[in-house]
């Protein structure tokens, strides 16, 4: 084999083995295989050889060319592999257990509980109604069977305003308007009235850890032909089992509320002990939870609905109390404090 071929081969192999950078490979490729490369030059110089030498020389140069291409290809592959290995090796192992950056907003706990309740009712075909906070004496009292001088007004420490209106002391203030709003569809088309009306209520009283002058209730009612006490019990049990997400036992006791007849105090089996008796239920096994009852005929009449033809039930849930029970909030005043130390924890249901 020609001396030049051998030395070129040697030189190239030496140069290739010495590089560690992919960019240099291209230089070598150009230096040997490019148009002006050394191997190309050998090819070009072939024509100066004698004809008998030309064939063998040509074959040798071609061999060299192929070998060079293979070498370069191998080296490229090697360097690529090496580069990836380097990249992997240089990647640090991160401590993913370090605390995550948090930037979460929060819902008011009442919103969370209210939404949960609303969703239960919506799933049973109830409409959700909103109502003002400032109402008239008629809406809050007269229309729900609490005429002037009625002793029930003693139980209500109502905030009155200068103009004779008042801050609603109970969500029942919305009953009349809702009966009037949906009454026509009931009477004309037989669409039952099924409504809940969450809202803020106000009581003129001193505040402490368990008393607030501003709190949330959610009232609900259903009116149709043939709505019965039996339906009421079924409904309360079903609804409360959904609210607490477990099978709840309910117990009704007579309770006096002017807008219902009969009226009930509804107790549920204690959520802590399940009814066996514990300190949180004062060892009775029961928790007094919400008032309910059959809508008083006077309330229906005042709402334009004939109590001889229609009956209905109504109930009131203390959303504030429910939120406190659910999250174990001990001081009711925290809810209206605006304190983000308290409220920012309620990121979602």
């Amino acid at each position, binding site marked *: 084999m020609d001396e030049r071929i051998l030395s070129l081969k040697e030189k190239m192999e030496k140069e290739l083995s010495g590089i560690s950078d992919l960019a240099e490979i291209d230089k070598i490729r150009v230096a040997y295989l490019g148009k002006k490369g050394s191997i190309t030059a050998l090819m070009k110089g072939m024509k100066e050889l004698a004809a008998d030498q030309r064939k063998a020389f040509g074959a040798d140069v071609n061999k060299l060319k192929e070998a060079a291409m293979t070498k370069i290809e191998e080296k490229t592959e090697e360097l690529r592999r090496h580069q990836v290995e380097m990249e992997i090796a240089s990647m640090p192992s991160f401590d993913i257990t370090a605390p995550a950056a948090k930037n979460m907003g929060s819902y*008011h706990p009442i919103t969370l509980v209210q939404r949960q309740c609303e969703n239960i009712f919506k799933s049973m075909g109830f409409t959700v109604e909103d109502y003002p906070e400032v109402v008239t004496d008629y809406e809050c009292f007269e229309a729900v069977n609490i005429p002037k001088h009625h002793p029930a007004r003693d139980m209500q420490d109502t905030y009155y305003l200068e103009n004779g209106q008042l801050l609603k002391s109970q969500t029942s203030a919305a009953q009349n308007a809702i009966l009037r709003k949906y009454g026509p569809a009931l009477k004309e088309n037989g669409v039952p009235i099924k409504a809940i009306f969450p809202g803020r209520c106000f009581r003129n009283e001193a505040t402490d850890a368990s008393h607030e002058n501003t709190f949330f209730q959610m009232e609900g009612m259903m009116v149709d032909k043939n709505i019965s006490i039996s339906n009421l019990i079924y*409904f309360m049990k079903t609804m409360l089992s959904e609210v607490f997400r477990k099978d709840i036992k309910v117990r009704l*006791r*007579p309770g006096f509320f002017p807008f219902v007849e009969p009226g009930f105090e509804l107790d549920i089996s204690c959520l802590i002990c399940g009814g066996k008796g514990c300190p949180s239920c004062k060892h009775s096994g029961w928790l007094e939870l919400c008032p309910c009852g059959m809508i008083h005929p006077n309330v229906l009449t005042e709402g334009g609905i004939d109590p001889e033809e229609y009956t209905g039930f109504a109930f009131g849930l203390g959303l504030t109390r429910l939120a406190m029970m659910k999250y174990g909030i001990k001081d009711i005043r925290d809810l209206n404090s605006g304190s983000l130390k308290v409220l920012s924890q309620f990121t979602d249901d």
Partner: protein
Amino acid sequence: MFLSMNWICDFVDLDGLDKVDLIHRFSLSTAEVENEIFFKGRDLSGVVVAEIKSVEEHPDSKKLHLLKVDAGDGELTDVVCGAPNVRVGMKTAFAKIGAQIGDITISPRKLAGYTSYGMCCSESEIGLSDDHSGIMEITDDIPNGTDIKSVYDIDDIVFEVDNKSLTNRPDLWGHYGIAREFAALAERPLKNLETDDLTVYSELPPVDLKIEDNLCKRYSSIKVENISRNVSPVNIRIRLYYCGMRAINFLADLTNYLMLEMGQPMHAFDARRVDKIRIKRFPEPFRFTTLDEVERNIDENTLMICNDNTPVAIAGIMGGFDSEIKDDTTTLALESANFDAACIRKSTVRLSHRTDASMRYEKSLDPEMTVPAIGRFIYLLKKYDSGAKVVSSLTDEYAVKFPPVSIEFDQAYVDRYTGIKIDGDTIVKTLTGLGFKAERNGDNFKVDVPSWRITKDVTMKADIIEEITRIYGYDNFEINTALSPLYPVRPTEVKTDEEKIKDLLVKRFSLHEVHSYVWAYNDEMKAIGIPVEDNIKLANATNPNIETLRRSMIPTQLCQVRTNVSYSNDFGIFEIGRVVNGVDENNLCIENKMLGITLFSKTNSIKDQYFRLRDILSSLTDDIKHCELTFLKTQAEHSYEHPVNYNRILINGTDVGFIGMVHPTVGKNIDKKGNIVFAEIDVDKFAGAKGKELVYDEPSKYPSIEYDLSMDMPKDVLFSDIRACWENADTDLLRNVSVIDTYDTELIHRITVRFLFGSNDRTLSSAEVQYVVDKITDSLAAMGVFIKKS
């Protein structure tokens, strides 16, 4: 109210029944019983009647005496006793060795050198009263050694009913009414009250008595003289004590006993002071001393009992000091009356003086009760003081009667209302048991309501349902779902928007939802230097710190920001709540539901904060209404708003609220380094503002062309002013416009706007794009905008 099971059993035989179980049933069927039930006398045994046979002074103690006591054992027992009232011949309660008094077991005990073999007891020690001034004196003739529990009603079950649960049941304010409920629950007969036959006195002269004001519905009276007894029988005193009352003297005790038994308050006047009873009000206010020796202001609305023209008692509330029974009283004029419930209630509130009597009167007592109560009183009086002599006829003025109530209903009504089947016989039996007169004719019922239920409680069919069902027992109800047709329910737009707003603010912008009060707290507002804006006020707030309703949520939120400055360097709060903006032409409050957002930061510049809030509001609008907000720079309206950057917010021309920055003075009061911005949106207006439907834009298959223009804006020209330059360019090729950069120096306000051109049906040529761009730049130039060549 405390109730004695012994007393109840005077009127209904509950032998053989579990009384505690009945009390629980009472709680489920009638009125709420408090959890704790008291088993009186259960912890007392071995206490007997004993007689003191000798008394010697203790040689070393001034207080102690050495007694020999006959406890019926056949021999005398040595006892050391410290009570001051010991004397020979006195009978007392004696705890023998081994006796149990509460936690104490009596054993021989050495006192100052002498051993006492037992203990003489005070009434307080054995739980009969709170008298611990000396040992109990037993005046009844009882053999020594008799267990006192066998002669006195010490063993009893006492329970407490929540007074609130009796508000609508005037008939349950005495044991007899309660016994009626137990009788109905136990299905046992209720016994009649034993009373004196008052007709035998009809020939005697009447009491001089006249109702001059119909707020007194009924007044019954009788006079009795020659009363010699002063101390009540032990059993009467025990019952009073168990029911939470104190024994005073025989006559006062007897009136109280009657009140606890029948629910009828009574008053005994000293007949020497009262001989011409008149019931009336006085036109002029005056002062009057009640028997508790308190002088009270009486006004023209307060009904008074008078001796002719001299007031002697506040009707239904309390007797007067001058006319009360004294120790030397032997003749009394008894009052058993009925007054207007509302009148008594209001007087009670005015006088801030609630008594056992007024508590009952304000529930609307049954006026039919006054005469039987007198019959019962005389019966008991004569039983315990045989010398007592009635000296007048029963005198009874009945000014106002409740009309009788009778109710008709049928089986179908009961079935429909209850949803279960309660048969006709059960209905009749239940109502009869409760004292109703019930007639049944097939499926039809006619019920006469007893007088003690008509005063307020039972007036209509639905009330009868309650009577039937509560005795039937709600625990016995079969429960069934309602069968009602299905109809779709569509939430209101406001409600839907509210929920979306909350979700976006919490989830996308990491704000915190808070709640606050609808009024201003004067002290908090003062602390940050915001004057309380004039508005409608609360008329009767008990807290002097709250008075005026708020017109805006922002001052409230600024107060809340102040409470949170140490919580974090950066936070935002929001609330959907109410404000009131004065009254309308009908003098009714104008209430608005507002969304308030306030952002606080110690790290971001005020400008960044302001734009962040702008972006939040735009995003809400974009998301919910699929349209853009527009802003209108106006004068700030309140002292807490920064005068420079205050903008009204409009959606399609509807003003929905404002965005602003805090005034530096207020801001510094909240936090020296904090930057605070806020916005308030009327939620109803927001929901009502016309938005756009979501429109789908088919992505083009052809490439689009971006064209950037850097514009130097003249002073006082707003971005919203130059929008017309491309919006009016009359082209359908412009797909999007966005600001990609802003550059501000003191002299230059430069914004770089990227225009995106494209078409759905072809690749645009640069010429047609340039044509539009030229149109835009021409308009911009006309507005004085300098286009920087790039």
